[in-house]
């Protein structure tokens, strides 16, 4: 691959994620609307919103960190994205995934949240900080099953590289981790829902209670950036799960198919369950998914 193509590939990387992610968000609003017995907004609505926001001439700022927060957020998320291979095979759209491993990715995922938290912090809205706090508290709960799952994965495949894990799952559905290591997958699924902001675990945003949580004070270009980041992030997570548990995708279509399946699961959960309080969320996470994960871990260790 020539250097030019490589650069192109890298530049395309976030955009793919952005567009797919935004579309998924649109679809999500649609589907949820349907479930709620109403017509949802158009599929492209989210994209439109973002562009509209970008075009807003004015945005209020509370200071340097307020300004930088969203940028750090997008930096973190995009960087993280670069270390998650979108396509398997290692030729196209694999970013820098050979330069980092699963743990790196896991930690990079938090960097975005940090940026947002810093911005919110300077914003000075107590509700925003409250939201951040809740988000971080929830994270304690979410990360455990997730980590157990990836520990099982890493232990099972004896590598921490996402590409390797994908490779080892090649060759049929039966090789997929979600079937070979079902308990780990189930455990991780809870975390996944949580991370996607699905309903039982959506307390940080908590739209009805704390006025959209962390993002309260952001407007205009900042909100636009944050929304795009959310889109990218959503895609990132979907991709990651696909990579880890479904053997990755050889091309974009398969990727979309697989991610869609995952996405649907999120939507179902979201629309069915009502919100947990943050301590309930943590408690729940520490009880059932963790238990399932630990069983998976024990099985893996015994094996």
């Amino acid at each position: 691959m020539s250097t030019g193509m490589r650069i192109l590939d890298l530049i395309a990387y976030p955009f793919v994620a952005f567009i797919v992610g935004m579309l998924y968000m649109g679809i999500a609003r649609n589907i949820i609307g349907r479930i709620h017995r109403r017509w949802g907004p158009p599929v492209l609505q989210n994209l439109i919103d973002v562009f509209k926001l970008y075009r807003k001439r004015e945005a209020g700022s509370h200071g340097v960190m307020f300004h930088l927060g969203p940028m750090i957020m997008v930096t973190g998320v995009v960087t993280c994205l670069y270390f998650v291979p979108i396509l398997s095979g290692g030729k196209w759209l694999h970013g820098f995934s050979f330069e980092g491993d699963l743990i790196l990715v896991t930690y990079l995922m938090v960097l975005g949240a940090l940026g947002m938290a810093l911005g919110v912090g300077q914003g000075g809205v107590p509700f925003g900080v409250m939201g951040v706090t809740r988000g971080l508290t929830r994270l304690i709960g979410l990360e455990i099953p997730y980590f157990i799952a990836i520990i099982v994965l890493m232990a099972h495949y004896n590598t921490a590289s996402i590409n390797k894990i994908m490779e080892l799952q090649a060759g049929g559905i039966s090789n997929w981790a979600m079937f070979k290591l079902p308990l780990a997958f189930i455990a991780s699924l809870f975390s996944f829902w949580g991370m996607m902001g699905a309903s039982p675990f959506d307390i940080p945003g908590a739209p009805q209670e704390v006025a959209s949580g962390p993002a309260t004070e952001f407007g205009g270009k900042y909100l636009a950036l944050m929304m795009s980041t959310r889109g990218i992030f959503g895609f990132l997570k979907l991709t990651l799960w696909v990579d880890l548990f479904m053997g990755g995708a050889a091309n974009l279509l398969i990727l979309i198919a697989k991610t869609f399946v995952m996405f649907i699961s999120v939507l179902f959960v979201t629309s069915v369950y009502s919100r947990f309080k943050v301590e309930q969320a943590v408690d729940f996470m520490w009880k059932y998914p963790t238990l399932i994960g630990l069983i998976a871990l024990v099985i893996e260790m015994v094996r």
Partner: protein
Amino acid sequence: MIGPNNVILIPILAGILAYFLGKVVKPAREGLTLGSVIAVCYLVFRMPFDKVISYSYSFKLPYAFGSLSFGTNALTSFFAILIALSYLFIAFTAFALVKDKDYHDTFYLFFNIVAGSLLGIVYSRDLMSFFIFWEMMTWSSYFLVIMNAKNPRKTGLTYIVFNVAGAYAMLTAMFFVYAAAGSMQFDKVATAIALMPNTKVLFVSILFAIGFLVKMATMPLHVWAPDAYTESEDSFTGFFSGTLSKMGVYGFLLFFATIVGFANLKGISSIKDTPTVGYVIAWLGVITSIFATFRAIVQDEVKRLLAYSSIAQVGYIVTAMSLGTALGIAGGLYHAVMHTIMKLLLFITVAGVIYRTGKDRFSELGALITRMPLSFLAVLFGIIGLAGMPPFGGFASKWVIYMSLLKSHNYFLLVAMIVSSTAAFLYCYKLIYGIFLGHPSSPDLMEVKEVPAFLWVAQVPLMLALMVFGMLPGLLVPYISKAVAALGFNAAFNSTNMYTLSAALGGFNGFTVINVLGVIFVVVLIWYTLFFPKSKKLHRLDIYYAAETPTEETPLHYGYGIGAELHRIPWVGASLRRHITTFYEKFAEQVNGIASVLKDILFNGDGQIYMLYAVLTLVAIIMFLGR
């Protein structure tokens, strides 16, 4: 040739001299400390890193114990460099912060003695000199702890009792070993231990471990640490938590890796290819980090939060090392370096903040970012490191620890560690938010100045170091490898260049990470700065406040609130409500009670009874010994 013995003496003498000379000329204190710092740094860096050199003390002191011997090897040099650098940075902090306090004179005395004794600990090559400097460290740091303490009675006593008790546990073990070996030299002791019966080795190991675990503030023995870290003189706390606790790490490594040997311990009893003792200690370490992390989150005092964080971080090191694998020890060492850097940075900055504002609680601080941008940056770097997030060195060290646990198949330990590691984000955020973001808790906060320039001398290099080690995670690898090799392990890492860090199951390229991050950040920054109009500056009260208009009096700072949720999470809440301190307090009460009763009964003031004692003893002797 200037050997380690002279390096040890430099700070100690400088301290004593500074005390007496400082009575005459005040700046002599700073001057001598600076001189000593420079000399120590020069000598420590000049010493060949992984060469094994031995010296013996030329004074007459050794005669009493055979001989006090000193020497260096890779591990020693590793820690010596750590100490020398911390000494340097803390010295500069002290120059700025201690100069108008009333303990100006004694601070430099004890501070230099502490530094010297730390060097002594790492350079000693026999148990006796190790213990001597260990005790010197204990008492000299004690004075630094109570120097500025608000509650010196409790803090100081707890500190000294725990540390002395730990040291004495160690001493008992030393004597035990000495009885078998007939010598205190490390190598002779090691040989003797190899020949000892299993139960004895176990006994000795446990006693030694108690000594080191106290220093590292591991769970049941950590009681002294939060108070001591919080209440010790601000500029010294960084040294305390960053470097003194590492002496526990050093001692632990020294004892378990070189003297007893993990293989030997493994031979006694092992769980899953890990020595049982190590396994138990690993769990202690990880439990420590979990509980300490939760407790850190709910603190209101800035330094106490950092203190608990320190306990938690050292807990990781304990866990990693006690498993006794090459990678684990490497991870421990790596994290030791990083933790030292981070804690120095954070404590120094916090000391500066407290110095400028005179406040040390989150509920009293806030919104200092506008007044202290550099300090904000320093804390930002610090917390990114502390949370173990990628671009900085903190991630690299944590990564190694995770890898070591994965490689040695201690998954449960890893899971437990993740609990703490994840929760750490909360206190990291609390730290930066509570001090620098949000709203000022009192108007006078908006008048403070940036921390003194002397602190920049410490802050800037430390920030750079964090960044460099994040960018080039392989930079430390050769040194750590040599240090690990000095403990008799094989190479732990696979990486060959300074950009990558790879071991066991994977690897990452820190250089790429930081480059990608940098490029994207710059791109976004340029994009936002050039292609969008400048944002409108809003007043800080111009915020969304549930349709109310906040005023200056409205309590908008959420500093103390962070972590309030934790109390409601059942298990965490339960753990936060219980203090192990209660147990120790009850124990102390019991001892006091026994003492009172004993003295009142035995020494009841009646001269006649005293006469009777003599007769009774006589009768007893005749009765029991007379044949």
